[in-house]
């Protein structure tokens, strides 16, 4: 057992940390947000150059050849910087699905372009009534000639507005919540019959509502009736990455709060001298360290082949992250006072991203129910 990084991992961490330090001050971030896509194409090219867009792909597909730990390092740094670019949608979700479900040829075609920064991908799976149930799919895919035609609507597709390629879960057989009968289709964002409406999300990122009216899929990934287990696996892996991002957010909120407390004077002294505030910031620290600790467990377990123990561990991680994140986010705002209520100050933005992460892929309550239904966490 050791928590040390390998030399390659340390180099990766140094380079992504430097990237964030150089390119992601709070003021720089505001400029990126004002760009046409709501993020920076220039940053994206830089990410590609550093190998971050292929961090978890095999070298054969232009990737960095990293595993869960590498993804953790990148995501944590991105969390600290509150990165806007579609890394999660394109690399983690899109890349993850193609990596797990694609054929060699599909991987060669798509992963190498993702890694090179020339293809943006989004994953469309949420529907109006599905909430967090990945099996609840009403968008249909019907066979037509040697291809598939999609109909229906998907919601809150992260970075669906800018994606070149949309991966879509659609029902090819069975009824609404059947685990069987779900396929994973590759759709060109410019395909006829596809309309999308992009909008900003609370955390300053972007999403889209996408509707499909007789849209011809460009391709299908894996078994057109049996995609769900792979989707679930990739979502488990994606949750672990989100949790790592959240650790970065929590770290930054905590550090910012402690620094602010030392500077802010009221009643003739720094507010950091008030014990009640000291203790509350210690509780934030303990929550942060608990989150960091379980995230290491979740990161490693996300790579487990056994679906049950993998999911249980990832859900447990999401619960602790959600619990710690809520405490740290709310307290970071509270201990700052009025300043944290403003768009001009950074802490509120971290709080907002943290809040969105809590709601992504299942709330704390949902994941707690999952853990509770799957037996003890201890072998």
């Amino acid at each position, binding site marked *: *057992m*050791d*928590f040390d990084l390998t030399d390659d991992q340390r180099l990766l961490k140094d380079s992504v940390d430097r990237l964030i330090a150089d390119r992601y001050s709070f003021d720089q971030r505001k400029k990126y947000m004002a760009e046409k896509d709501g993020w920076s194409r220039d940053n994206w090219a830089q990410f590609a150059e550093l190998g971050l867009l292929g961090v978890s792909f095999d070298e054969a597909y232009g990737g960095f050849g990293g595993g869960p730990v590498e993804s953790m390092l990148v995501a944590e740094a991105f969390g600290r910087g509150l990165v806007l670019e579609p890394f999660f949608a394109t690399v983690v979700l899109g890349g993850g699905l193609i990596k797990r479900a694609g054929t060699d040829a599909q991987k060669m075609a798509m992963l190498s372009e993702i890694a090179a920064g020339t293809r943006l991908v989004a994953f469309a799976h949420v529907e109006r009534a599905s909430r967090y149930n990945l099996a609840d799919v009403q968008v249909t895919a019907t066979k037509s000639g040697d291809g598939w035609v999609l109909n229906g609507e998907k919601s809150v597709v992260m970075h669906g507005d800018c994606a070149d390629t949309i991966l879509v879960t659609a029902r090819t057989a069975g009824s609404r919540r059947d685990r069987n009968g779900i396929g994973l289709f590759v759709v060109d964002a410019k395909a006829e019959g596809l309309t999308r409406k992009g909008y900003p999300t609370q955390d300053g990122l972007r999403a889209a509502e996408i509707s499909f009216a007789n849209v011809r899929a460009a391709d299908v990934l894996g078994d057109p009736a049996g995609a769900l287990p792979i989707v679930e696996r990739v979502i488990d892996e994606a949750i672990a990455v989100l949790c790592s991002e959240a650790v970065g957010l929590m770290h930054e909120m905590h550090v910012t709060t*402690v620094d602010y407390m*030392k500077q802010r004077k009221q009643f003739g002294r720094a507010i950091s001298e008030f014990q009640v505030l000291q203790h509350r910031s*210690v509780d934030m620290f303990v929550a942060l360290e608990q989150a960091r600790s379980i995230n290491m467990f979740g990161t490693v377990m996300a790579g487990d082949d056994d679906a049950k123990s993998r999911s249980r561990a990832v859900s447990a991680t999401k619960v602790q992250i959600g619990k710690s994140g809520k405490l740290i986010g709310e307290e970071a705002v509270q201990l700052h006072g009025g300043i944290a209520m403003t768009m001009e100050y950074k802490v509120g933005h971290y709080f907002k991203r943290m809040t969105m992460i809590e709601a992504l892929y299942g709330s704390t309550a949902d994941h707690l129910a999952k853990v509770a239904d799957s037996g003890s*966490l201890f072998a």
Partner: protein
Amino acid sequence: MDLNFTAEELAFRDEMRKFFRTEIPESIRTKVLEGQHLTKDEIILQQRILNKHGLAVPGWPVEWGGKDWTPVQRYFYADEIQLAGVPGGLAFNTSMVGPVIAQFGSEAQKKKFLPATANLDIWWCQGFSEPGAGSDLAGLRTKAELIDGQWVINGQKTWTTLGQHADWIFVLCRTDPNVKKQEGISYILCDMKTPGITVRPIQTIDGGHEVNEVFFDDVKVPAENIVGEVNKGWDYAKFLLGNERTGIAQVGASKARLKRIRELAAIEPMGEARVLDNPKFREKLSMVEIELKALEMTQLRIIADEKGKAKGRPNPASSILKMKGSEIQQWITDLTMDVAGPYIMPFAMSDEGSGRNEVGYGPEFAAAAAPAYFNKRKVSIYGGSNEIQRNIIAKAILGF
């Protein structure tokens, strides 16, 4: 980052597991796992077995019976001993006075006390707290004066755990009232049979007799019973309290308790079903498990951080272990009460304290549920209260 242990580390774990589960009587281990009190004889018996096999005081210097273990080995020792329900060495002996004597005592003191302390031939108690000196321990007033070559002690200690069983007490005394309060304290060893010592029981809210008041009335102690230098006692006490803090995390013991609670909840009827079938109960149980999993990882991170570093100053992050570890122990007693339901109510006392089902109503385990819940409030108070731990983190880590 690799969360797997090496084959040698796992072999060590298995060796410990086998030893604790085969060599220590099951009757003792079951009592511990059920949250019941042990008798004095049981505590002595198991410590002597451990000591016979060289496993009572692994944290001590090797020449006095300690082990030159890696941090991971120390972790597995603690985890396995707790998982097996073995009480382990009496903390006052093995993690408090023993290491202090080994580190700061004279050769004569080491020879006289260390082997007997390891074997629990001497039962020690801790004479630190006073009615006026709790968290602010350095404010203690029990005084020792050197008169005709003897220390004469006058004053009162309180909260003295298991003082009723003790042969010796290590006492912090005021030896210079005219300097900064931390600089006038000495660490003195005192035989409990010395004339002038009176022990009075204090009953705790669970009904048990676990703590005492100890009065010193012109108690005469040989001059050589002082540890280290006069007026340096505060340094030795701080050294000791660092050891105490990490011992309070009890991750292994909490794992064992949660396992037992799961078993009990799967048996205990609730309508047509079992307590474990209730999703609200399961979620509460899972939440505690998740926090414990995180704490286990935190503990491993702190251990990994020790690797290759000299033993010594406690990592201030170990305050997290104390705070979270104590909270988790308290939540666990709350869960046990959930399993017991209305059967937490019958109260019975015996010589061994409360917690035995003397009344005979309801399931056997239920009798200890409420007393354990009441009793475990102590873990966030002693060993440096959780507020004091927050002060430590605020100062040492956050730089306030």
